[in-house]
């Protein structure tokens, strides 16, 4: 991706009527070496309609304040580095275009909630990954496939868990969940999504173990079906539905 994306470079946007405009960003800053409490700071940035919020953060960091700190890598919604709260909603900064925001007002950007704040837009992801690891997120299949080849799986069986294979572990869902905010022990939607991915994989032999883990008091039953997670998912995973399917599987005692 080009370093600073200028809409005028872009096809379809060569219309001279398209000119840059100033957008105000209000960013919740926190420097652990100086600040007692987070504080809001505003920045004015020249932007084009097709720029991403990530472009704005880069412009600020590269042109105004090098100390602004955030994670990012791929810049096109694949690596899961840059989930943050943008105008109160969890989104990936690299997938949120300026044209889709109301720029008549400042754009609020802050770290995702429910995980310990480290610096500016960076939180400690370790508790998030710890929950992920707890659901045994790997294929458990002890029988060797026949003839030393691939395991056979029909197109329909493969389709059964397709939605939950898309997860990029960005934590947008988990950190949008009000239960997770108040109960740090709750596995959270992302871990359940990743359990779902294996529970419903026809090749897996140990759905039972994961269903037991999620039947725990900090498991699926904490979910209050607020749909925040589904709305937050930048990959369009039907998170709430996946959780519901896991609940049903627990009641059935099998996938």
């Amino acid at each position, binding site marked *: 991706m*080009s370093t600073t994306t200028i809409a005028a470079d872009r096809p379809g946007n060569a219309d001279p009527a398209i000119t840059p405009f100033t957008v105000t960003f209000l960013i919740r800053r926190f420097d652990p070496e100086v600040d007692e409490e987070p504080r809001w700071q505003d920045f004015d940035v020249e932007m084009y309609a097709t720029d991403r919020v990530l472009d704005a953060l880069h412009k600020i*960091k590269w042109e105004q304040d090098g100390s602004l700190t955030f994670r990012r*890598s791929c810049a096109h919604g694949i*690596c899961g580095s840059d989930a943050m709260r943008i105008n109160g909603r969890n989104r990936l900064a690299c997938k949120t275009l300026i044209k889709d925001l109301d720029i008549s007002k400042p754009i609020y950007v802050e770290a995702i909630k429910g995980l310990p704040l480290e610096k500016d837009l960076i939180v400690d992801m370790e508790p998030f990954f710890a929950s992920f690891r707890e659901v045994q997120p*790997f294929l458990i299949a002890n029988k060797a496939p026949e003839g030393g080849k691939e395991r056979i799986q029909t197109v329909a069986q*493969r389709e059964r868990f397709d939605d939950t294979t898309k997860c990029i572990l960005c934590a947008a869902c988990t950190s949008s969940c009000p239960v997770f905010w108040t109960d740090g022990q709750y596995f959270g939607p992302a871990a359940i999504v990743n359990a779902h991915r294996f529970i419903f994989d026809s090749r897996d032999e140990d759905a039972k173990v994961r269903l037991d883990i999620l039947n725990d008091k900090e498991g699926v039953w904490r979910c209050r079906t607020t749909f925040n997670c589904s709305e937050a998912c930048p990959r369009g995973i039907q998170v709430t539905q996946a959780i519901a399917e896991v609940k049903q599987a627990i009641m059935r005692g099998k996938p």
Partner: protein
Amino acid sequence: MTQSSSFDSADHTIVDGVHYHQFDVVIVGAGGAGMRAAIEAGPHAKTAVISKLYPTRSHTGAAQGGMAAALANVEEDNWEWHTFDTIKGGDYLVDQDAAEILAKEAIDAVLDLENMGLPFNRTPEGKIDQRRFGGHTRDHGKAPVRRACYAADRTGHMILQTLYQNCVKHGINFFNEYYVLDLVMTNVDGVDQPSGVVAYDLSTGELHVFQAKAIIFATGGFGKIYKTTSNAHTLTGDGVGIIWRKGLPLEDMEFFQFHPTGLAGLGILLTEGARGEGAILRNASGERFMERYAPTIKDLAPRDIVARCMVQEVAEGRGAGPNKDYVYLDCTHLGAEVLETKLPDITEFARTYLGVDPVTEPVPVMPTAHYAMGGIPTNVNAEVLRDNTTVVPGLYAAGECACVSVHGSNRLGTNSLLDINVFGKRAGNNAVEYVKTAEFTPLPKDPAAAVRGLIDGIRNSTGTERVSVLRKELQDMMDAKAQVFRTDESLAEVTQTIHTLRERYKNVAVQDKGRRFNTDLLEAVELGFLLDLAEVVVYSARNRKESRGGHMRDDYPNRDDETYMKHTMAYLSGDPHSADAADHIRLDWKPVTVTRYQPMERKY
């Protein structure tokens, strides 16, 4: 932060504020190559994986189209055809023994992944499905063949997730958001031997020395030397740069691949798998121009050829759009069903980032800097070489940072996901074998001194240069003068620019002076690697006065096997800051290994 509890006091001490760890095997990088190595090494040797990103953020996850293996699940195929295609695709600069290994071991590499849980797309019989890809053919070029195993257009995502899942299963020790900035060498009997690496912990700003018997570099590519690229912001070639600064050679650095179909102006990739499924490149008048250049396999010609044809179409005034500066990738005849099920992510990229719906409109595309064919020279055992033949004991490299060379002067699509699996596995296995008998090489006194000097130098600098300004000048210049077409003149110009930028870099300063999560500082360090590597790329490119694969010289448009059918080997020697690159870069050649296939003219 560490991801597992690797901080037990037994293997961790602190001396003068520097943390010391000891592992049998240390793997630098947690992309596909690094984690594939870890899965082999972890269960058999005390292993640590150090990564500047959380493993699942690695750019392997961005790979879309597929991974080649002659499984012959959907039509006749065999590994010999795959070998031939790889060699021809690489314009005969491929080491043929390595290509044979790649193609042969491909089959197990795919089956390994499936057995580990990778959700490949399936055929109606429930086998792994396969699709067409550029340069992969039936029977030595007769017609395109379906060889790429895939999971929609998320193959890399699935590989990265599957490998990470299996690392979790094996309880691999990860040190995440640790930036390795130096390889520690100890002089033993007059020879420099690797004894460890030094890493900077992003969260605390503290330095960690990892003493190891075997070290595997798997740090990925360096596409960020260019402006328009499919590579992540973090692909700054640190590992390759570290090796370079140690005086070890880099191979074939002039060969960089420009992928034909980057979203115009943005560089975000649209997989070649789109053309594999039948998409067509068209110029402004709607002509399928590839028919003129590659009559047999047309849009599925290898990337170097397609990229050049696109640039030529635009140069000759047949580009589309208001500035006539791109061509179209036409997917409209594929139908919504194919796009939504087999190419869902790229369909969404075009919609999100260009506001173009591939179902109904052709998508503006232009070549984007994509893949480094060159890198750290290794033999087929993934052992790093200190010259044409001598191995550095205990040092390994695999993945995009390495040059085996299975890609020669132009990599075929789907051969890199394959490379990281085949040679990542080999690196892991060979490291395990090595540490069974090897001893730890003692660390030199204060092994972290160089990194401390580098970090403090930048942190305390009161200079006036900004990282972002220098980086932009570098990237703009590389796009303008060292991209798909090059001439001596254009390369001379960019050489001059790089020299000036390297001088200005000495005067670079950062605004963030803090210790915790100082990404400002790390961007400055990364820029240092980019500048070093860009210089090697351009210097090697200037020296190769022929056109081959990804390296197209307008002033020498033909391939010249007599003089140049050999690998470039570049060494840092002399004062790195001398004005003339010739005073600090020494070039040498390394013969190409030819087993069965004599060079032929490359027609498709």
